[in-house]
């Protein structure tokens, strides 16, 4: 069944890109000089695929990931230029306007930030993070907040992004009528074969999944239809909480309007980046009006929420708790109820990483960045976590950008692969192709430095390491940054920087051995 689903997803997406990074340049302004951490990285991750990113430590893999999430700590770091398309929206649309960077010398850089625009940028990006793209970090013990329980950290994510949906399902539950149950029963009678998926879907929609097992049992018992319907009605109606609906409706409307505000802001930023002055002015007016009316129409709600705080959201938190425990079950955590209330330090590293994954997928993002998720774990746990990520990718069709320095893991996990060196993507292609036919001298060196029994290297070279080490990125080598360590160095390598070009089908490489194309 899983394979079927996967096939379906594959054909549906058909190589459509979910994430596209173009010419990303990220720098860090430190007291010792400017670290040119990323120097024009270009890569793309398709829907539903696992894309691997490899390279030595310090080559910019993590910086790439952090840049994609727009989490580069500022100061000292900043994204200088480039574009990052997530689900066809460029999150760096307003980048040039956010800050003016005045480089006086290597160690003296002044950054003048536009606070108002940065605030707007943060508002937009905070809505994109979590719901479109999520991240799993290398060291789960550091990445989980030590003073907040696991459950609170997961439900925080659910409550941030799924409020409208939760509110809707609660409203549906509370306004369930006997008519609805009858319709549901009729529908089930009409389905041929397994009725469980339908039950599952329906209970979720009406926020009564606690009743799922009971419903299935009643349906299985095969009593006559009148009795079954009566029992069903009893069970389902018994799950109502009797919540005050006006509250929840107001909340839903409020959050809906907030979403509209976000959509408009998104459009505004896009219009501004395209210099559509009139359009932007109209949008700006709309936003102003909407935020004004939001404050006016919901003033009593806002005040009540401010005064009552958490108590106001108990209904939502109950639902979030239920979903959180479900997520923990999904990531194979035993005793999810206990773990939900536990604090991070009470869990083992593997459990922490599972919780971390549960947290990342809580708001159903279609893309997951995994930044060396298994490096801090022991080998057996490592395998389990890798399996988990792969299963998630298969079942939900979530794309994964998988970052690691471990080539064995990459070989196991990824469909496509990118090799990074000193802030550049030097080679990209299908994993099998890259392993069997590495083109860039760095990739060749990297592969030949691993002892492998299963794959025969092209040149039958002995196990060896690449001479030299990763260059200091404050004053990186000119031209191709790999040339000082390269066996096939040519004169041009020190002068010009090679572009990443497709030299074979789906196989791109940035090296003058294969093309004469130049970046600068």
């Amino acid at each position: 069944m899983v394979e079927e689903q996967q096939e379906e997803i594959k054909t549906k997406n058909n190589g459509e890109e979910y994430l596209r990074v173009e010419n990303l340049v990220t720098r860090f302004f430190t007291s010792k000089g400017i670290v040119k951490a990323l120097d024009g990285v270009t890569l793309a991750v398709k829907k539903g695929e696992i894309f691997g990113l490899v390279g030595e430590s310090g080559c910019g893999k993590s910086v790439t990931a952090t840049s994609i999430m727009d989490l580069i700590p500022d100061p000292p770091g900043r994204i200088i230029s480039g574009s990052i398309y997530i689900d066809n929206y460029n999150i760096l649309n307003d980048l040039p306007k956010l800050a003016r960077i005045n480089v006086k010398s290597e160690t003296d850089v002044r950054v003048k930030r536009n606070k108002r625009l940065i605030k707007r940028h943060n508002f937009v990006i905070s809505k994109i993070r979590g719901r479109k793209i999520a991240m799993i970090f290398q060291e789960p013990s550091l990445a989980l907040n030590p003073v907040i329980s696991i459950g609170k950290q997961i439900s925080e994510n659910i409550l941030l992004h799924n409020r409208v949906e939760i509110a809707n399902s609660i409203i549906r539950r509370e306004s369930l009528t006997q008519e609805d149950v009858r319709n549901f029963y009729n529908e089930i009678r009409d389905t041929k074969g397994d009725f469980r998926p339908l039950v599952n879907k329906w209970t979720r929609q009406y926020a009564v999944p606690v009743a799922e097992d009971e419903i299935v049992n009643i349906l299985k018992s095969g009593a006559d239809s009148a009795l079954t319907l009566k029992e069903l009605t009893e069970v389902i109606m018994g799950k109502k909480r009797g919540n005050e609906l006006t509250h929840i409706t107001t909340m839903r409307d409020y959050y809906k309007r907030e979403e509209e505000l976000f959509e408009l802001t998104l459009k505004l930023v896009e219009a501004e980046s395209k210099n559509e002055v009139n359009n932007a002015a109209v949008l700006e007016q709309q936003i102003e009006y909407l935020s004004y009316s939001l404050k006016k129409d919901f003033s009593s709600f806002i005040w009540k929420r401010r005064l009552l705080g958490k108590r106001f959201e108990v209904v939502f938190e109950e639902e979030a708790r239920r979903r959180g425990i479900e997520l923990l079950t999904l990531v194979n955590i035993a005793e999810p109820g206990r773990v939900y209330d536990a604090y991070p330090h009470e869990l083992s590293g593997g459990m922490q990483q599972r919780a971390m994954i549960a947290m990342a997928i809580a708001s159903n993002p279609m893309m997951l960045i995994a930044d060396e998720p298994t490096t801090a774990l022991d080998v057996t746990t490592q395998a389990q976590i890798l399996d988990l990520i792969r299963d998630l990718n298969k079942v939900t069709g979530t794309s994964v950008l998988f970052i690691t320095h471990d080539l064995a893991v990459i070989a196991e996990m990824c469909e496509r692969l990118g090799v990074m060196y000193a802030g550049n993507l030097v080679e990209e292609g299908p994993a099998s192709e890259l392993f069997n036919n590495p083109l860039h001298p760095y990739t060749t060196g990297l592969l030949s430095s691993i002892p492998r029994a299963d794959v025969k290297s092209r040149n039958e070279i002995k196990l060896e390491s690449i001479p030299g080490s990763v260059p200091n990125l404050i004053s990186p080598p000119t031209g191709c940054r790999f040339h000082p360590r390269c066996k096939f160095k040519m004169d041009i390598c020190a002068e010009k920087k090679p572009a990443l070009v497709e030299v074979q089908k789906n196989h791109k490489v940035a090296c003058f051995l294969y093309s004469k194309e130049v970046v600068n």
Partner: protein
Amino acid sequence: MELRYFIIRRLLLLIPTLLGLVLLVFFLLRMFPDTYLVARFVNPKSPVPISVQYANAKAALGLNYPIFIQYFFYLKALFTGQWGTMSTSIYTGSVLKGIELYFPATIQLALFATILSIVIAIPLGTYIGARPNSVADQTGRVFSLAFYAMPVFLLGLLLQLLFGQNVIAGNPLGVLPIAGKFSFNAVGAIPPPWFDPSTGLTGPTHLPLFDALIHGDWKLAYSSFIYLILPVVTLTLSLLAAILRFIRAGMVDASNQEYVKTARSKGVPESLVIKRHVRKNALIPTVTVLGLLFAGLLGGVVVVETVFNYYGMGILALNAVINVAIYGVLGTTFVFGVTLMAANLIVDIAYAFIDPRIRY
């Protein structure tokens, strides 16, 4: 819940610390020569020979026993309330009674200052710490450093100069009284029975503000409140400055942690990142130094009492030192120690409350 066991364990740990404290006080006592300790019991005019009197007194005080037996005697005396007597310029009588009369004023100053500082420091520190190197941050740093580095007596005198009544002629800000606990004008011609004009102390709590409120004497309550302002503000400013420095440092440190990145990666809005994820972690290092800061505050209370003539246990201790009243010194030192122990206990419980990792 685990927190309960933590508290019980922490309470049990109080016992050795308390014994250590008694040991220190006992050590202070025994460092004095025997002749000095028994001098009170020797009467040169008595027909009994002085050497005999001396020996008797020594026996009566238990000074002939081995030192550790003496320690237990001292412990017993301490816990049965036999703290000796003292004779100083402000108070003469039983040490225990003196502490009962003057300790409330001290703890009142300390508590008011602590509560005010914490209530102000947490939101202010959050605001400042979330914006490192901004204008607000720089201003906050300069002020907190100045108040932190200023000796408390200097701060008190400065406030007296700026806001003290009749200090600088024609100063429009000079409206607050600078010395005493309340104005005697507020008491009225016939003092109420709960007021003792000879000592200036009120009953039953010995705190004029609360006593007046208990007895419904609004005029005296108002007067006592006005007289409290400057001493409390002095202590608050100096404690606030210190707490603010720690919260700010904690905020800056916590915002660079990995879990803050995680929070942002989940799409938590910036304001919630600060409130939910950074602040709680930033308070942990602050709480750990709170005990130390409270120790400094108790020292500050002694100074403030002197500057503002606000009679409390600090002045009592000071007078005991100056008037060589040994039991007075021992008693007040012990009570100051116990107060600090209690404060540390509360701090530790607060710590366990904030940081779940500590409970195990």
